[in-house]
């Protein structure tokens, strides 16, 4: 077949790559193939909450319930299990979020921040 190539990256050097803090090391020139199992950057909980959760769960949106209120320490594990289950499986109107969208380390840090009330003041509009 004409106009085909098995080395797609060779056309890319002319592309102008701009820095992107959010992606960090992922923004490599595409000529560099990622090694198997290359780990994506881990976003901090506030960033995951802002990018994904707050659009529905922030108090001024009210599409989903508020989720940032602190829980008593004795209930952290149970609440964490519930949040993990809902995030991974979805529930009614709530979509499921897979590992490719919120990684396991990100989810664990997010749960910790949620149950301890660290994200109570965040909304979708805050940068």
């Amino acid at each position, binding site marked *: 077949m004409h106009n085909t190539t098995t080395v797609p990256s060779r056309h890319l050097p002319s592309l102008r790559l701009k820095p992107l803090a959010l992606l960090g090391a992922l923004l490599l020139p595409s000529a560099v193939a990622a090694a198997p199992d290359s780990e994506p950057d881990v976003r901090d909980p506030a960033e995951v909450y802002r990018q994904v959760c707050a*659009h529905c769960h922030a108090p001024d949106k009210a599409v989903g319930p508020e989720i940032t209120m602190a829980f008593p320490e004795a209930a952290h594990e149970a609440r964490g299990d519930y949040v993990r289950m809902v995030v991974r499986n979805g529930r009614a109107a709530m979509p499921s979020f*897979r590992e490719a969208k919120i990684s396991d380390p990100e989810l664990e840090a997010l749960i910790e921040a949620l149950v301890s009330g660290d994200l109570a003041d965040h909304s979708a509009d805050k940068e």
Partner: protein
Amino acid sequence: MSTTQRILPKGVSETDFDAALSRFREIIGAGSVLTESDQLAPYTKIMMAGDQSDYIPSAALLPTTTEQVQEIVRACNEYKVPIWTISTGKNLGYGSAAPGATGQVMLDLHRMNRILNVDPEVCTALLEPGVTYQQLYDYIKENDLKLWLDPPAPSAIAGPVGNTLDRGVGYTPYGEHFMFQCGMEVVLANGEVIRTGMGGIENSSSWQVFKWGYGPYIDGLFTQSNYGIVTKMGLWLMPEPPAYRPFLIQYQDPEDIEEIVDVLRPLRIAQIIPNAVVIVHTLWDAGTHVMRRDYYDGTDSIPREAIERIKADEGIGEWNVYAALYGTPEQIEVNWKIVEQAFGASGKAKIMYGEEAEKRGGGFEYRSALMKGDMNLQEFGLYNWRGGGGSMWFAPVSQAKGSETRDQTELAQQILGKYGFDYVAEYIVGWRDMHHVIDLLYNRQDPEETQRAHDCFAELIDEFAKRGYGLYRTNTEFMEQVAGTFGDPLREVHRTLKNALDPNGILSPGKSGIRS
């Protein structure tokens, strides 16, 4: 997953599947090949009225490069393993992140999430499939670029590549997404890579600015299809205008839809109003933030009396037109006078913008955000209207003619009413066409209601087709039925292309009803 419950791709032996998984692990690493049930659970959540057991993947693969995708499809050909491709997987109500059929392996491209280029001079972008609208929005803000996006309602959590490839729409002047796509990189089923448009020319600077390239234009073949895996896509971005005026026009009678469309059509075709205008019915406008049970707790279709109470209490019209003007302040003033004259002629319309519109009870705030490309998911409040997590978008196309719109509205209301569902709908106005988008909301926790929703959707497809109305897009449960409404000769062409490009049928079998 335990051996006794193991799910395999259709027609693939356990031995071959294990061999394929080993090969996948060599290509992308063991941590990027998901086979455990808790890892696969997020891929099984569906909102359409299908049987959960029909949509369970056997594995999920998370590549990060085009080269890895090439190697994966070569392995799939060797072992005849079918893969179902998703990007951000937020095509909610159309199939979400679930496979097309149980046993298919998910090819999850969300980790291919590089913004490869944004050019603020020619206003273009080149993206990988996993890039979300939020990610691109943040990039534009952080770099202080004067560019706007055009997100669909799931905005932040969805992405431009997947939405465009499914021929989704947004609400700015760039609302018809495929019209603003320019250039693709595609991995074919044989593992080769092509670049469409000008991309075949080495070091071309015009891949993202000239759509047609040379010879047959083939980008459309890779939308709503299973002929290749798009690993990069170019799109055009809208330059931020100097001024922006979102506005709201409300009409109070059901039959007013005819006047609205006939007044709107010439303004839209002439680009006086340049954006993808929406004409929103009461129940959609209320449903994003009002609870159904506050007005009616019956399980049948909500009665007219309750709709009238919602209109009165919430300040919502029977039909609510959300549109916007863009340009210099002077241009906006000129066009605003034209809009006021056109819609003011009959005396039926209430025309508002600014504070007056904000005080109305509908969705002016979130519509204003979407019409300027901001991230906003308020529309998902619709999923709370009836509750229970069931949603299917029934979306026939109509001409932008009032008589046709009225016919479609009445037909939809009659069929939905027969099955006890509500008419939660809007029209999204293209240049000459409209997408009549109806959210068939139902309680997925109730098996009887789920079956009823399934039967209702099937009847909607058939009855609309009998009157010459076809769907622009549908969910995986109904792709076969909808493909049938477009006739056998077209399906035969689709099948011929599939056999030529993917003879083993490994790429998303059943997408849009296409199989090898």
